[in-house]
């Protein structure tokens, strides 16, 4: 069994999650006996990741910085099998959701998670949530520093923080270690971007008040350059300002982005800097040994030099068209020449996006052990990633993924759809999203066609809470309910890649469910006819504007 190359829990960490499980076990007992009312119990179960959805409780398991060992993934498979219906859903925040959990089983499921140093703490509720990172961390060629080190630092600081367990609303933090932000830091409550200043020092740009949902906003820079050891003191200052001044009167205006919008970025900066100044030299300043001890655990696995040119792989690429397309779409450059980063596509044609059965999870764990140093990542796009695959092994990995149904060469393409669970599962939804994703996926299943269309991100949300991130889709689709009928509002030009953040603009009136595929077809046709060399869908849209797309869509539906 390979050693892990990310933070390993010590006895302190293990004790804490075990004690939280025991506390929760007692809270569940008191709820089932009626000692606790639902009102008293709800925040207690939410801060252990347990939602009540349409058909059942849903457990949202934290996967800190989207990194899993094969051992952990196998345990997830086992828990899905034993306590759920044998499958789970990987989310846009790098977590895993199990949809059919029983409350009475939840403490045992959490205890099972604790066996592999996993938990569901603070994946819901008005607390600091799972801190997300770049899913290529530690492997990408353009990385300045591994952001996961800092995710772990923040994870510990934010877990059961006594002052910040009853915030006005949820608080989401994301960290990127690369100038090509793959963690969408500008649409988080706080985004942190590692960068190197002119003096050669690495520090954080601190961005505040981004978010999607009802009022999508792009975050503002709170601090250009924050020395790394000051991170926790600064975050504590920001959270304290939010806890004190965030709105408590209106659920829909309670996020920090509203506070920033209402008092202005300048005032927000003043308040945070004042609080931070008052806390200077606090116990929160990170000792270099503490940072080093955590950073060392993220040191990459020893990756021996391997050849970048492998004749066998070249031959297969020329002979097998599907393999060639898979190489092109589903693999990315690694910082080392003889390696590639491989994405397992959890978007087979017509399947619910981002779902994996227990058997498939175990298959992925096997591939990780054999070919990827025992490590798997969860992307923000509901796929799984093998960070360190030797080029020589690519044909074997491809074959193994094919057997699992995870080798569709569609990563980043039109059928690599992000969709929230929607009205099929979710108590908050207005419309279904999974069947819409399935229809689009089936319609565009032809691989050659997909590669001709090129990079195109469709993101679907079943309600304004935007868990499908529709605001930042090249094509965004928002399900709404009008007089009991499901309608879908289409937006264009959203983006959250390559350091660019843009909120999409609504195209026109919402369309009925049966017209969504026609609408997307019309959008694609408009692009194919108008595109200039090298332009992706979103580039053409930016060049020619919405009008040609709008005309075509509304003529078709």
């Amino acid at each position, binding site marked *: 069994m390979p050693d892990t190359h990310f933070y390993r829990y010590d006895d302190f960490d293990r004790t804490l999650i075990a004690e939280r499980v025991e506390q929760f076990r007692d809270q569940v007992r008191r*709820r*089932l006996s*009626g000692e606790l009312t*639902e009102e008293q119990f709800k925040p207690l179960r939410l801060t252990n990741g347990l939602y*009540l*959805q*349409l*058909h*059942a*409780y849903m457990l949202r398991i934290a996967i800190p910085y989207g990194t899993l060992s094969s051992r952990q993934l196998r345990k997830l498979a086992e828990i899905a*099998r034993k306590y759920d*219906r*044998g*499958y789970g859903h990987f989310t846009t925040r790098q977590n895993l959701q199990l949809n*059919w*959990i*029983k*409350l*009475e*089983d939840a403490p045992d499921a959490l205890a099972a998670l604790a066996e592999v140093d996993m938990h569901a703490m603070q994946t819901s509720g008005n607390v600091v949530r799972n801190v997300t990172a770049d899913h290529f961390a530690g492997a990408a060629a353009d990385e300045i520093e591994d952001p996961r080190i800092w995710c772990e630092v923040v994870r510990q600081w934010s877990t059961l923080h006594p002052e910040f367990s009853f915030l006005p609303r949820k608080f989401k933090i994301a960290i990127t270690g690369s100038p090509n932000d793959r963690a969408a830091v500008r649409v988080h409550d706080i985004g942190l971007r590692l960068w190197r200043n002119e003096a050669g020092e690495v520090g954080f740009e601190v961005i505040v008040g981004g978010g999607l949902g009802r009022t999508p906003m792009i975050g503002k820079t709170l601090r250009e350059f924050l020395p790394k050891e000051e991170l926790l003191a600064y975050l504590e200052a920001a959270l304290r300002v939010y806890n004190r001044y965030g709105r408590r009167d209106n659920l829909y205006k309670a996020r920090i982005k509203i506070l920033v919008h209402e008092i202005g970025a300048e005032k927000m900066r003043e308040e945070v800097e004042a609080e931070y100044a008052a806390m200077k030299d606090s116990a929160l300043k990170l000792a270099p040994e503490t940072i080093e001890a955590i950073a060392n655990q993220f040191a990459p696995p020893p990756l021996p030099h391997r050849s970048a040119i492998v004749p066998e792989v070249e031959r297969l690429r020329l002979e097998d068209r599907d393999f060639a397309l898979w190489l092109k779409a589903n693999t990315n450059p690694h910082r080392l020449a003889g390696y590639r980063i491989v994405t397992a596509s959890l978007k*087979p044609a017509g*399947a*619910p996006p981002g*779902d*994996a*059965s*227990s*058997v*498939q999870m175990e*298959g992925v764990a096997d591939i990780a052990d054999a070919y990827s140093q025992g490590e798997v990542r969860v992307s923000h796009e509901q796929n799984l990633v093998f960070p360190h695959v030797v080029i020589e092994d690519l044909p074997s990995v491809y074959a193994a993924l*094919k*057997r*699992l*149904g995870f*080798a569709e060469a569609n990563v980043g393409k039109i059928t690599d759809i992000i969709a929230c669970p929607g*009205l*099929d*599962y979710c108590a908050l*939804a207005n419309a*279904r999203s*999974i*069947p819409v994703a*399935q229809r689009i996926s089936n319609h565009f299943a032809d691989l050659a066609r997909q590669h001709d269309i090129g990079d195109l991100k469709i993101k679907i949300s079943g309600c304004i809470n935007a868990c499908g991130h529709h605001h930042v889709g090249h094509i965004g689709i928002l399900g709404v309910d009008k007089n*009991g009928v*499901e309608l879908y509002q289409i937006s264009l030009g959203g983006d959250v890649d390559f350091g660019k953040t843009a909120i999409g603009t609504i195209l026109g009136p919402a369309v009925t469910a049966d017209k969504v595929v026609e609408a997307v077809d019309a959008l694609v046709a408009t692009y194919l006819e108008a595109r200039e060399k090298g332009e992706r869908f979103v580039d053409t849209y930016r060049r020619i504007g919405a009008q040609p797309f709008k005309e075509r869509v509304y003529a078709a539906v």
Partner: protein
Amino acid sequence: MAKNLSGELQVASANRLSDGVVVFLDDAGQWTPRLDQAALARDGRGAEILLERARVEGASVVDPFLVAVSEDDDGTVTPLSLREKIRASGLTFDAIAAEAVRYA
């Protein structure tokens, strides 16, 4: 098959506390997963009484509420809203089966 779509027919529903399963109040005041066994309120007053009863029996469920339904000539009861249809009958697509592995 004439349907009563006026929204006057109601059943009481909730999620069971212990396992989250969707349940309906039956005539005996018990919670059942079967919509076809749900007690039917046929007017406003009846609905008030039904909801009150659901609350009285509410210890084993979470937040009972009323669901508007229609009734066919042959007595089949169907929720009016899509949301409640989904609650009553489950996912509208095939989830990945427990042992699903696809072979290329």
